[in-house]
């Protein structure tokens, strides 16, 4: 879902840079108050894992493929959407600067879509469903995060004049409803594994077991 340079005009890119810088600043503030000695290597290895898994494009039919984003997963593990925003900002920075994956001018929009939207939607969906079971909550959170992000992306392209409204929402919605299943499945597997093998890594799982 990485928008390349050219898909949205410069004025719109600038607006999303401003919005994303604000959220990244909030994420930095969160990290200063919440990251401890134990979080540092976990954050780093999660970033490496998300970078790697984003390169695995899975065919979904219709001549199309998709890959996981991972902001929802990071937010669930660190118990804050700001963790996902900070991590995705770093992943997108490396992808944009070194791998031509996502443009430089539009990076603010990509941080907004795949960082801010995925993190907030995924985290709060997960949090509200957590007492129904961790795997189910993680799956729904992952799916909803990716799907919502695609809808938001489509609307940005409609504002840009690049995508027609209805055709954009239908195509982006359809493809990402399917790609969301990949996001949901991997998120559920990872959260389920950590919750059973290392619940001490999850702040919210410290007390009760479900």
């Amino acid at each position, binding site marked *: 879902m990485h928008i390349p*340079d050219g898909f949205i005009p410069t004025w719109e890119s600038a607006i999303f840079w401003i919005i994303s810088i604000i959220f990244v600043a909030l994420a930095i503030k969160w990290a200063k108050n919440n990251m401890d000695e134990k979080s540092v290597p976990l954050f780093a290895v999660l970033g490496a894992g998300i970078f790697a898994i984003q*390169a695995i494009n899975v065919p979904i039919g219709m001549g*199309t493929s998709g890959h996981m984003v991972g902001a929802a997963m990071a937010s669930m593990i660190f118990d804050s959407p700001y963790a996902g925003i900070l991590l995705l900002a770093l992943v997108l920075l490396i992808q944009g600067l070194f791998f031509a994956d996502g443009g*430089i001018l539009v990076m603010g929009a990509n941080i907004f879509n795949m960082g801010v939207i995925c993190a907030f939607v995924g985290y709060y969906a997960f949090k509200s469903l957590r007492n129904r079971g961790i795997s189910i909550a993680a799956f729904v959170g992952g799916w909803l995060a990716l799907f919502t992000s695609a809808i938001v992306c489509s609307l940005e392209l409609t504002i840009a004049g690049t995508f027609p409204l209805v055709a954009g929402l239908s*195509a982006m919605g359809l493809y990402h409803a399917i790609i969301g299943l990949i996001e949901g499945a991997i998120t559920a597997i990872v959260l389920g594994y950590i919750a059973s093998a290392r619940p001490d890594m999850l702040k919210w799982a410290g007390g009760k077991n479900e």
Partner: protein
Amino acid sequence: MSNGSLGTNSKNSKFIMGGLIIALIIGILAPFIASGDPDGLESAAEKIINGNALESNLKEIGLEEEGTVAPSPFADYAIPGMDKIGEIAAMLIGILLMMVLGYGVAAILKKKEQIAN
């Protein structure tokens, strides 16, 4: 500092090493198993994009086609002229870069230890 026993520490480093190994394995496999089909956004764009809007955006930033305004050393997760080996190397470089950047940023930002004594 807390009374983190040796047992907890080695359990943690095993968990982190395990995660890094999984990331590296995914990175090595990616060039072989990833689908070359366009992703959801590119695929939608191929079908519905407004050519005029795209053209005027590209003209504004001086590009011939959509992509990036800055040249990337490992564009498309490859190293020019190196084929599959280059793709694997590009992935491994990316994973290690991410590990270093993630560690560095988190280490700089982490909350300062309370100095009690």
